[in-house]
């Protein structure tokens, strides 16, 4: 249980699930959730490597900044999504198709 690969596998699965969400969900907010999963999986990696790499605190710092960044990004993304909703009355990604020739 407590070895590096376990965590890495968990992270990989989360990453893949996040990917899957991003690729398949039609709702922009759901896509955003997928992205959060991806970021979390990376964080898990960082922390796992930090622990098994001899308590390397750089990983912690990295994870910290990722979390900060994720918050900022989520804020902006949601602002955009809500703005879109106000304009399109839909936030299905594939229906936002003004830009098609």
């Amino acid at each position: 249980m407590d070895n590096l690969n376990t965590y890495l596998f968990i992270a990989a699965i989360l990453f893949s699930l996040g990917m899957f969400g991003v690729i398949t969900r039609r709702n922009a907010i759901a896509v955003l959730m997928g992205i959060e999963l991806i970021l979390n999986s990376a964080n898990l990696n960082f922390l796992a490597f930090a622990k098994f790499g001899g308590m390397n605190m750089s990983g912690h710092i990295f994870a910290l900044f990722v979390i900060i960044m994720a918050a900022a990004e989520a804020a902006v993304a949601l602002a955009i999504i809500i703005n879109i909703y106000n304009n399109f009355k839909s936030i299905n990604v594939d229906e936002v198709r003004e830009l098609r020739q």
Partner: protein
Amino acid sequence: MTGNMFIDYSLLILFLPVAAFTIQIFIGKRLPRQGDWVSIGAVIITLVLAIAMFASMLLGNDPNFSQEASFTWLDMGVFKIELGFLVDNITIVMLLVVALISTMTHIFSVKYMEGDIRYSRYFAYLGLFTFSMNGIVLANNLISMYMFWELVGVSSYLLIGHWFEKDSASDAAKKAFLTNRVGDIGFFIGIMLIFSSLGTFVFSEIFDGIAAGKLGGTVLTFAGVGLFLGAMAKSSQFPLHIWLPDAMEGPTPVSALMHAATMVAAGVYLVVRLFPLFTPDALLVMAYVGGFTALFAATIAITQNDIKKVLAYSTVSQLGYMILSVGTGAYIAGFFHLVTHAMFKACLFYGSGSVIHSMHHALHKKHDTETDPQDMRNMGGFKNKMPITYWAMLICTLAISGVPLFSGFLSKDAILAGTLSFASHNPGHFLLPVFGFGAAAITAFYMFRLMIMTFHGKPKMPEIYDDIHESPKEMTFPLVLLSTLSVFIFYTLPYFNPFSDHGWFKELVVAKDSVVPGSETAHYIAEGIHHAHYPAMALSLIVASVGIFLSWTMYFKKKISADDWAEKLKPMYNLSFNKYFFDENYNKYLYQPLLKLSSLVAYIDWDLYDKYVINGFGRVTKLLSFFTGRMDYEGLDQTIIDGIGRTTRRAGGVLKYLQTGRLQSYLLFALLGIILLVLVQSF
């Protein structure tokens, strides 16, 4: 000026006509009388100069007389071309002939072309024609000969096409030029073959080179045949003879000039000039071509009704003689015939011109534009109306038929003797004399047919008969002069033997040995001719008599119906009448296919190659771009993608889900890209 009388005179002779040409082209129209006096004056001066040269040649009496002068035309270091003159006895005689005929033509044309809309231009072109021919005559090298050779072609093009409003005239002009170009190709290849081996264009150096063995064998034969191809086209030898009869579309004086002295003579002159370099094989080709042409053209002439066509084919036939004689080695005889033929053929053409002129006026008076003024079937009985023309033409007809006392007899006899001698040395080539004598008989026949149909019998068109008049003296003067010159005496002086060509000509114009190793010497050939002289004479007299007699009985006495015979020999008559369908076949098998091929090539080039291959690059790019655009922007078709996931779907939802351009497809692609990159990198 070089200080050498011959060269200086030659220069003047060469450039006076072209000066006249230049004046005529630019200001001719604005001069009084449209400037015809400029041209006439120029050629008369050349005639005087030519006579002067001729006189000094006679006085000098040197058979090996030769003068050369040249200048550097271009120089790139090693590659250097020098152009120059070669004046020897052949040149001088030929210059005189050209100057004489040219002068006569100019004079004759004054009346004949009176009132023509392009009168001054006509004279200009005559000047150009004379210039070009003089250039050929004077050339001492292949390059300038080739250049003037082509200029002759152009001049003929311009003159044949003088009445270009007529389609037939412009066609004929084009045909003449193009047919000549075919020959030019051969000529040029010949030049290249010689030059690539010997590095020179100058005749004397070429002869030296061949004598030294630098060039010989098959290559030389090919070179010779190439050069001869040029001569074939110019001298209208079979199968390149087709242009000449059509060239009758030009004004008749032009025909006279062309047939007697300039254009067609050039070919013969070329082979005479270059005789020493022809290999026996090349000569044999010449002999056969010439011989066959002589006979073949004669058979056509029999059935023609157009007076000028008859004369045209007769020219072809006579040229065949000349070539034949060169081929058999008796090239001086050929040259001799060239000179005599120039006189009487020019005269015959002037005569026919005179007749046509008169017919034309008569028809014009009756406002008859339907009737062909050149058709002999509309003539007859003109003897009384046009006595000078008649007598002049009669003399010339006798000359061409090879009747003793006239020049033609001497030259033709020499040729036939040469042929006979050649055949006796090479019995395998017995056909050559057969061609010769056969043609001689037929010549006599059709020439008398022409005379009788035109001048004897009853007028076929009595309504215009009264308006037929003798031509003005500008036109009769050349007739008289040239018919006079068709008498033997002018060629045998200082001797008076009408049966022997022994005279100044034979003494001054002598054959040179061939420089090709293994060829017979001039002396050997001359001996042969000498021996064959009397049998040939006898034979030729017989065949000429037979021809004349047949003609006499058929057309004058009408003992034998020509029509009956034509009926009886219908297929042959048709062949002859239609000139063996040469034009038709050339048109059908050469010209039209060429045009079709060119259309095809153009089609391939423009509508296939450019449209599909070249633009194809563009189109493929666009197509690619289209697909890339779709792939890139819209992702794989959603049906395919969705099809993998869900095979069934409610119909109503289909449209909704088929919407494309969604962001996630891009993301998917990016992921796929990553996978691909990983895979590529790992393996």
